[in-house]
């Protein structure tokens, strides 16, 4: 029940946003993450954005995976 999915914010009106995942759009509240901007990725849980996703940290994690993968192959 703690399922949350990464969605992209495509429109903001006050504390309501339109978010998109895989071509589907829906309304979401950004009351818990009020500084959300259009274009941000947020985690959507039960109709609410609960946290912004950090692109730099995501890239860093992927870089770490690649590093591990390389080290194992060597």
């Amino acid at each position, binding site marked *: *029940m703690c399922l949350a999915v990464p969605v992209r914010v495509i429109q903001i009106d006050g504390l309501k946003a339109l978010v998109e995942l895989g071509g589907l759009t829906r309304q979401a509240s950004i*009351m*818990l993450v009020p500084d959300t901007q259009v274009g941000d990725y947020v*985690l959507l*849980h039960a109709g609410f954005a609960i946290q912004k996703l950090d692109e730099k940290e995501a890239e860093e994690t992927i870089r770490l995976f690649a590093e591990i993968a390389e080290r194992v192959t060597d």
Partner: protein
Amino acid sequence: MRFIDEFRNSTVAERVALRIQERKTRPVNLMEVCGTHTVAIFKHGIRQFLPEKVNMLSGPGCPVCVTPNADIDKAIALAQNAGVILTTFGDMMKVPGSYSSLHQVKAAGADIRVVYSVLDALRIAENNPHKSVVFFGVGFETTAPTTASAILEAEQLGIDNFFFHSVHKLIPPAMRALLDSNEVHIDGFICPGHVSTIIGSQPYEFIPREYGIPCVITGFEPLDILQAIDMLLEQISTEEPRVDIQYRRAVRKEGNPIALKYLSTVFEVIDTCWRGIGIIPGSGLKLGQRYKRLDAERTFKIVPGPPKEAAGCRCGDILRGVSRPQECRLFAKACTPEHPVGPCMVSTEGTCSAWYLYGEESKALSPPGEP
């Protein structure tokens, strides 16, 4: 899809798994606390990549499962009040209470509506001013802020027919209760990723400090989980237990301060009862002084009758990681997802449901790259 596909690369997953297999470690029990992790671990076939010495245990992190019968009975009694519309998440409908389920009383005529979000319940209240709308709020720190937000929004909109049966619970006190019980040996915790987006990493610090047990806050994609297991094994081998954050793209050390502020504005922390564990100090959220008037239990007269447990059901042992579903004589016989006896089989995140759907024999069905 962005933020998903990159974390499902099967070639990389195999390499990370290989690294785990090559690690020289003593046999360890790693517990995933969160039900969403339990499902992800089964669905992505993570177990098939782990060496035998790494044993995964499922913990008490399925909110539907840990809601005791007494609280389900109250929800059912509330729904049977004339003039009440009870709203709740779909997972709660089929959970058997002591005498009945929400699904059964709905079939008998009670006005019960499944909602995706507490905001849907708020809209129902707005559109039905002559009825009382009760939201049966279950869930951990991930979900509780959404209930708090709706309470604040209803107040702002002047909606006065919206009430709450809040059984929200807090995860770290349950982890302490498991450790104090000494019933199960845990060498490392896969800490819940989405609970942690709200609470951050600090609330787990007591685990390495007081119990010497490593913790890794983990994302939900196969690569996240494999990396977290590798990080736990690293902490175990260096004997330097701490709280690491693997799910860095979503979890900040401080969590979500706005969500935490709403929680403390609306709720107060209480001792509460968990199915299978009993009363855990400081593990529940009840409406605080300012919002007590919205507490459905105070507003409506309900007499739910004494709670009782289904004979033979071992959900309690399973929630504590003491037993596996196969050790329950009802599992996959008298108790199936179609006819569940206990909540661990009802919820899609329940350990029994996950074993029933994906079980041991499904090990080869879903490599990490193709969920």
